[in-house]
């Protein structure tokens, strides 16, 4: 309730103070200045003087974030980033492009705009890693020596491993593939839109390898379901999700939630089915199963290829020598600090790291500071206590306008950022808002070393 006489008293008090307009404005300006200066002063740390040569292989999310943090922390270091690609891809946005929410331009920018000052960019691909000789060799044959190496090459989408797959046909004849490229994601949206108008059989799947953002195949099944419903054609469509193993998601509690949602939305689920071959003209996909090969006709399919370490990493001594990540050549790093297990001056961050769980931008955001701190500690001759616990996050879209903000760690624990406010297994608009509005700015801030 408004109490006017109190306000009058307050105003008299304000009036009685020696606060004229000028000092009032100065006070305001000082307050604003303090707000801007204080955290910056607190954040600024002394730069470490060194002449170390640091090579970063790959200028994707992990490579650029590492470059930004190292150039901020070091004075006098020679930092070289090696990547042939000039286009930078905001990969978490591919699903939104393929959902018809954003244009292809939303996910495409340039490497140059994020490159920190003082970092040299070699526009070539690394052809060979030689950790015993502390050097990498580029495609043109140029050898670049290093004291420390950060491998952030990302991964290889192995479309060739699917017999009959032709990426040039994406967008035609019901063939979609969200992961392929910005243009591929947009072409997939066109194929989805046609399917949502007509109905038929929609097929969704994931590969039997490690993959980036394991939630994306699930999201896309939900998105297709929602588009069909919005156009009143859900009754004309049959949606099938073929999981590669016995679960829909590696975190058991999330698997259960998605299983229930698929049941509720009428998305039929099969387990232990892996895409082996596809005939895009006949619209037939062949899956392996415990019962033998199965042919499945489709009107729309979202092909997700097997994913492996890039050839140069797979062919190098940096790969796991045995265990679950050896086959596809992921880097043998310590899961807690991303340092190579056999070459202590080498780190592997981002998709190429052979660690359990997420290959996502969120993983990158929490891996890079840990790896960088350990690298800095090596230069300074100290030890680092920084630990990466496997944190990653997946805003799992369950329909247009809602998502579940699933965050977890190496141990399948849910690690919600906003406990009691944003429930991880609840379909919420606020999580969708984060995905569509806050995620890209956070990602770009990370590339610039500001988040």
């Amino acid at each position, binding site marked *: 309730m408004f109490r006017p006489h109190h306000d009058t008293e307050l105003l008299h008090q304000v009036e009685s103070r020696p606060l004229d307009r000028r000092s009032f404005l100065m006070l305001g300006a000082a307050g604003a200045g303090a707000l801007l200066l204080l955290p910056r002063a607190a*954040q600024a740390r002394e730069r470490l003087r060194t002449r170390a040569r640091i090579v970063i292989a790959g200028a994707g999310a992990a490579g650029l974030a590492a470059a930004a943090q190292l150039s901020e922390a070091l004075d006098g270091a020679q930092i070289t980033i090696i990547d042939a690609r000039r286009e930078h891809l905001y990969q978490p946005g591919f699903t939104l492009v393929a959902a018809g929410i954003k244009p292809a331009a939303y996910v495409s920018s340039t490497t140059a705009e994020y490159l920190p000052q003082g970092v040299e960019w070699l526009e070539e691909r690394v052809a060979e890693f030689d950790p015993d000789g502390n050097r990498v060799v580029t495609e043109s044959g140029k050898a670049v020596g290093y004291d420390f190496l950060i491998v952030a090459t990302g991964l290889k989408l192995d479309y060739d491993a699917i017999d009959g797959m032709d990426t040039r046909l994406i967008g035609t004849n019901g063939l979609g593939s969200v992961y392929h490229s910005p243009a591929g994601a947009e072409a997939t949206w066109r194929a989805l839109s046609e399917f949502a108008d007509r109905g038929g059989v929609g097929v969704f799947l994931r590969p039997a390898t490690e993959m980036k953002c394991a939630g994306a195949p699930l999201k896309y099944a939900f998105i297709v379901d929602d588009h069909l419903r919005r156009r009143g054609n859900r009754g004309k469509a049959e949606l099938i999700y073929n999981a590669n193993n016995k679960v829909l998601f590696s975190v058991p509690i999330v698997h259960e939630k998605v299983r229930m949602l698929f049941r509720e939305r009428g998305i039929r689920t099969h387990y232990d089915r892996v895409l082996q071959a596809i005939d895009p003209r006949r619209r037939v996909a062949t899956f392996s199963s415990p019962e033998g090969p199965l042919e499945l006709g489709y009107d729309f399919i979202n092909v997700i290829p097997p994913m492996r370490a890039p050839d140069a990493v797979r062919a190098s001594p940096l790969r796991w020598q045995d265990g679950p990540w050896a086959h596809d050549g992921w880097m043998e790093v310590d899961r807690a600090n991303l340092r190579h297990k056999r070459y202590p001056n080498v780190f592997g961050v981002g998709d190429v790291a052979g660690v359990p769980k997420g290959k996502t931008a*969120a993983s990158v955001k929490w891996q890079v500071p840990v790896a960088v701190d350990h690298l800095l500690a090596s230069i300074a001759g100290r030890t680092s206590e920084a630990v990466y616990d496997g944190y990653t996050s997946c805003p799992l879209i369950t329909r247009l306008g809602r998502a579940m903000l699933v965050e977890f760690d190496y141990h399948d624990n849910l690690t919600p*950022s906003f406990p009691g406010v944003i429930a991880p297994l609840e379909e*919420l608009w606020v999580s969708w808002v984060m995905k*569509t*509005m806050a995620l890209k*700015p956070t990602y770009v801030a990370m590339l610039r070393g*500001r988040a």
Partner: protein
Amino acid sequence: MKELDPMILLAVFQEMLGALLWVLLATAVGGIVAFIALIVRERRIVSRRLVRAELAGLVGGALSLVLMAKVSSSGFTDAGGPADWFLIALVFGAGLVGTTIIGYAAAGWLVQLARGATATQASPPVANRAAAMPPAQEHGNTVVTAMARRAKGEDRTVATEH
């Protein structure tokens, strides 16, 4: 998203809005300063103006929700839980309070400027006298202000309502 650091928030909003962030912050700070300065100058809340500003605030709140729906490619009908209703209330509330404060301050300062102009035009002799005798100017302005207020029907202030 594991933790919230004010500098990270600032960086994220800077990436999200670009130069618009500073325009919005300047508008917010300017609006609040103008509002406080107006209250200090008028020494009261003008109830009729406040009610009108609040009505404009309702429109501002609704527009905030429309804007939010547009930039997030969704709508508040997608709300699925308490956190969503909280966000909707927050967005609506920010639009409402912002528009009310800026609307009230803008209307008030327009009246102040009009009064200043009226005072200079209507009574040059008073102004002349005032130049010679500063305390009299204060008195003369108060009289003109009161007259202008009566003419605009604004003298039913909150301060006189109890």
